């Protein structure tokens, strides 16, 4: 085989390469000739363990059965899931391991896809046509790179960001040729860990050398994380001005506008992005919800119906979207048509308590609007039943939905109480608070939501400070009772739960006072874990907890 002679002398010397023979492969393409073509290429590279799938559903099934080292997936898979949706589901459900290389095969220049990717990017894009030698070289390098970064990715998966950054910093210190890539990864890990100051440093450094969109976007995200919204807005706006097809920048610009209480701007921006790439369903959902709070029911209907249409095969398919669509359709068209959407929803989500909750809540609203108060009340009963089952303690999502339902059913007092509860549980999440404010205002529950929200926030911050102060003065008992009482009233508040766990652990450590405390600590930590698994304070407290339980 003469085709390799020209570089065979450098084979294995220049780039780190991994062997292809012992690896397992999944080839996904709807076109039979293409499948066998790629399979033949892999065979002639010495691979033996190759599975082929002709559509996204088959690909997911194959990944459920087996962990592949390499997935080669065409972007265009006919009807059903597309390649991006296969990737999203595989990563989201952890059907592929950290060492798995996912290559997206596309028909043309892929720049726009990269710029539009929301959460998950493939490890590499390969443009058709490609030959065997190119495939071989690309895979060898990708597998070697994965191998090289595996310890870091493992640490990230265990949410041990401190370790991940430590390992990464060691690599960066050696100034390897791929330092650019490592810096990109470092920025992402810092952001995920909530180390925004360090992220700012990383991106500033990269940008000092050369202007690059990914680094500029990262800088904006870090500013957003640091709650420097006005500066973040300028960064995202500049990115969009420089490239009006950079949809990921639109998403962040809209998020930032929301935090600045510029809800109409946020909607306009998402509308533009949704027009450029309508298939991103998380964006359609966000657009629909924004439009609702801006009382723009036509835009809301279009967005929710797109989210339903494009989301049929997506792992992000969510019952709230169907429920929202049903309610908007009932408002824009007829109640009967809204109920029809709910019927579809039941088919799409069988035996799903979350879906039943949303379904029943929406039905109660629609029945009421159609004048059938008996059916409306029955539906509300069902919704409340599911609500209890879902464990209302933890997620605010359901209480907010219930609050909206009460408003539509003409019970503003219950609605207001639930909204206030949601504010108390999320006093440090500006984006959600701003959303809640806009929703309360658009539902006519609150004329000046921002001052109400800032009152509640101040009260909680004061309370937290007081508890911390007490603990510092050694008045642990008082501190514990303050935080535990607070955690009772705000079971969904991360900061309060973490503080309750922290002072309990302090008491156990300092006074060897275990009585009944272990289980309470566990409850608080579990609550936070369900709300924010990436939380680094949680990680530290958990480590301490394990230490104590272990001894």
């Amino acid at each position, binding site marked *: 085989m003469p085709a390799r002679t020209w570089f065979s002398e450098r084979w294995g010397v220049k780039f780190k390469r991994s062997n292809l023979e012992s690896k397992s492969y999944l080839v996904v393409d709807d076109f039979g000739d293409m499948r066998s073509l790629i399979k033949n290429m892999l065979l002639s590279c010495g691979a033996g363990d190759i599975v082929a799938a002709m559509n996204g559903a088959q690909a997911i099934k194959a990944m459920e059965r087996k962990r592949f080292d390499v997935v080669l997936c065409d972007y265009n898979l006919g009807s059903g899931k597309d390649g991006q949706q296969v990737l999203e589901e595989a990563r989201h459900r952890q059907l592929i391991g950290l060492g798995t290389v996912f290559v997206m095969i596309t*028909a043309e220049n892929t720049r726009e896809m990269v710029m539009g990717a929301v959460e998950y990017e493939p490890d590499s894009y390969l443009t058709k046509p490609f030959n065997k030698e190119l495939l071989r070289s690309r895979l060898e390098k990708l597998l070697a790179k994965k191998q090289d970064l595996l310890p870091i990715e493992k640490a990230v998966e265990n949410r041990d960001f401190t370790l991940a950054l430590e390992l990464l910093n060691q690599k960066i210190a050696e100034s390897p040729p791929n330092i650019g890539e490592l810096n990109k990864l470092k920025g992402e890990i810092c952001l995920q860990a909530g180390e925004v100051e360090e992220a700012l440093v990383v991106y500033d450094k990269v940008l000092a050398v050369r202007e690059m969109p990914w680094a500029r976007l990262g800088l904006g995200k870090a500013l957003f994380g640091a709650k420097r919204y006005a500066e973040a807005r300028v960064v995202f706006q500049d990115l969009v001005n420089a490239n009006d097809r950079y949809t990921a920048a639109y998403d962040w610009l809209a998020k930032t506008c929301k935090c600045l209480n510029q809800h109409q701007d946020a909607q306009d921006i998402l509308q533009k992005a949704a027009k450029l790439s309508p298939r991103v369903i998380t964006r359609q959902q966000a657009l629909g919800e924004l439009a609702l709070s801006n009382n723009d029911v036509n835009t809301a209907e279009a967005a929710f119906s797109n989210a339903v249409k494009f989301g049929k095969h997506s792992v992000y398919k969510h019952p709230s979207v169907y429920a929202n669509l049903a309610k908007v359709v009932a408002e824009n068209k007829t109640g009967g048509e809204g109920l029809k959407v709910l019927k579809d929803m039941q088919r799409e989500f069988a035996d799903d308590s979350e879906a039943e909750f949303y379904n029943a809540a929406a039905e109660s609203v629609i029945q009421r609007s159609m004048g059938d108060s008996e059916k409306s009340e029955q539906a509300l009963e069902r919704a409340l039943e599911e609500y209890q089952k879902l464990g209302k303690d933890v997620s605010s999502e359901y209480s907010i939905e219930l609050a909206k339902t009460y408003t539509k059913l003409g019970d503003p007092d219950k609605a207001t109480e639930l909204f206030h509860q949601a504010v108390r549980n999320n006093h440090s999440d500006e984006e959600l608070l701003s959303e809640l404010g806009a929703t309360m205002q658009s539902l006519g529950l609150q004329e000046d939501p921002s001052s109400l929200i800032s009152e509640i926030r101040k009260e909680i911050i004061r309370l937290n400070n007081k508890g911390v102060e007490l603990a510092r003065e050694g008045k642990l008992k008082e501190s514990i009772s303050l935080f535990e009482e607070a955690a009772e009233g705000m079971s969904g508040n991360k900061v309060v739960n973490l503080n309750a766990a922290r002072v309990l652990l302090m008491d156990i450590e300092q006074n060897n006072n275990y009585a009944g405390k272990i289980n309470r600590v566990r409850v608080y930590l579990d609550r936070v874990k369900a709300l924010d698994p990436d939380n680094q304070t949680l990680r530290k407290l958990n480590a301490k907890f394990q230490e104590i339980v272990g001894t």
Partner: protein
Amino acid sequence: MEFSDILASIIHDMKNSLGMVINTLEEITAESDDEGPQQKKIPILQHEAKRLNNKLIELLTLYKIDNNRIVATIDEVMVDEFLEEIVIDNQVNAQAKGVTLSYTCDEYLSGYFDEGLMRGVINNLIGNGLRYTRSQLLIAAQMVDDYLVFQVEDDGAGFPDTMLEAQAAFELNESYVEGHTQLGIYFCGMVARLHKNGDRQGFTKLSNNNTLSGGCFAVWLP
């Protein structure tokens, strides 16, 4: 849908078919040991199919530039890996024509450019070079005066004087250029100019008798 959008989607479709043609031809050559007269014609098919593919990419890119649908997305690229892949991709064609295709660059050279666009440019230059060279094609990359310079050189007859003289005109995009070679130059110039850094902009340069005796096409990126 505008007419130009329909045109673009038809080109995409054509490109898909052509991709299958190219891959199938490759399979045929790999599978057969036969050196009969019919087999010898396959490389010609391969070369022309590949050229057609490059031209379609060129057309699509020009269409996007014309519609302001494209900006160069700058990222840091390992030049060695980048050129290695391009050479692998074109190696079969070069060998079939009896041309030695190789590249040279510093192992640790990294550059800032739009990988997809520059891939199109260099594939194009290789496609053209394979027509005009005698026995060699050399791709080189290096930093010169704070520019990243890609060169594609051949040992053919070199560019005619008229082209060397006219290059300022394509560079400024002043005259409409006819003929395949010139259109390729026009495309490369367009892509080079999409690359900007501060107030500097990319450009192209034609010359003869660089390291090899023939023509040398250089793309300078800031």
